[in-house]
């Protein structure tokens, strides 16, 4: 059994690893948003209030391409609709007072959910969720402010391979979850459904629809009820 200290160290180390990437993307968001004629205040408000990288890049991308504000908002909301499903999944980590749950909900990201879900022990999962969420919130907003103020191109993160890190990280977190047949079926159905829908729906919707893939796992015998 790992000691309390090593587990705590792992939560912090993993959060800081993801945080380093979020910082770079935060800076590039700040640069991109201000170059799309958003004020520094609005750029920072997006990161503080929306706090969702994919949606923020999508919104600024639509605006920079000359799209209507309404189209930008709708594409951002569609991308973030997946948080409905992720919110259900992290609900067990957010027990407690209404204020605590309301605050924890704002810290929900793909990364904080994924790292917490990969933690087998329930108490460590709660700690991982909060540590990751707080770290990401701080570095994402600090990065945004720096990018918005400096306003100089730091280069496309894709050239540095940074965009490839997240799917690799999510896959590393997914593999240990696939410990029984129902979960493997759910994962296959979710991934398959998401890829099928990608060409025909706006980004974000395939992930939300993939939640239905979870239902496919219910039909498979051999499930464990300790499911979280």
């Amino acid at each position, binding site marked *: 059994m790992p000691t309390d200290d090593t587990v705590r160290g*792992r939560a912090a*180390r*993993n959060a800081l*690893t993801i945080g380093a990437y979020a910082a770079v993307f935060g800076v590039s968001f700040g640069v991109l948003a201000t170059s799309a004629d958003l004020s520094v205040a609005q750029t920072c408000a997006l990161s503080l209030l*929306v706090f969702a990288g994919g*949606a923020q890049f999508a919104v600024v991308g639509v605006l920079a391409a000359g799209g209507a*504000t309404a189209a930008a*908002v709708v594409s951002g909301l569609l991308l*973030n*609709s*997946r*948080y409905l499903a992720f*919110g*259900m*999944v992290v*609900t067990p980590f*957010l*027990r*407690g007072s209404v204020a605590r*749950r*309301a605050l*924890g*909900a*704002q810290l929900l990201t793909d990364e904080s*959910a994924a790292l917490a879900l990969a933690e087998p022990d329930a108490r460590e999962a709660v700690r991982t969720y909060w540590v990751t969420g707080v770290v990401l919130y701080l570095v994402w907003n600090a990065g945004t402010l720096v990018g918005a103020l400096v306003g100089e191109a730091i280069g496309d993160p*894709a*050239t540095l*391979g940074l965009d*490839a*890190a*997240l*799917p*690799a*990280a*999510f*896959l590393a977190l*997914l593999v240990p*979850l696939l410990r029984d047949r129902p*979960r493997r079926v*759910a*994962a*296959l159905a*979710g*991934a398959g459904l*998401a*890829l099928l829908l*990608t060409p*025909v*729906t706006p*980004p974000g919707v395939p*992930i939300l629809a*993939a939640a*239905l893939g*979870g*239902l496919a796992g*219910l039909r498979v015998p051999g*499930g464990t009820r*300790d*499911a*979280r």
Partner: protein
Amino acid sequence: MSWAALLVLAAGTYACRAAGPLLLGGRELPPRLDAVLGLLPAALLAALVATQTFADGTALALDARAAAAAVALWRGAPFVAVVLVGTVTAALLRLAGLP
């Protein structure tokens, strides 16, 4: 972008995030729903991996990200190593001219 539009986006996003924790949190869930929630993480994470690896906007694409993701299948590798090796793999492939 108007402040009103920005606030609509923020409020809508928060509503999606908070629906589960605020409406379901603090109460016992029926066993059937609990079983569904147990399978959701695998389905959602797999969908994230699939789209972030093979989707470029609404188009499907096979590029350096797939090689980087394959690094994650290296058994027993520490999380930090997966992330770093994945990044370096994609950067090198792109340097070599792959998309």
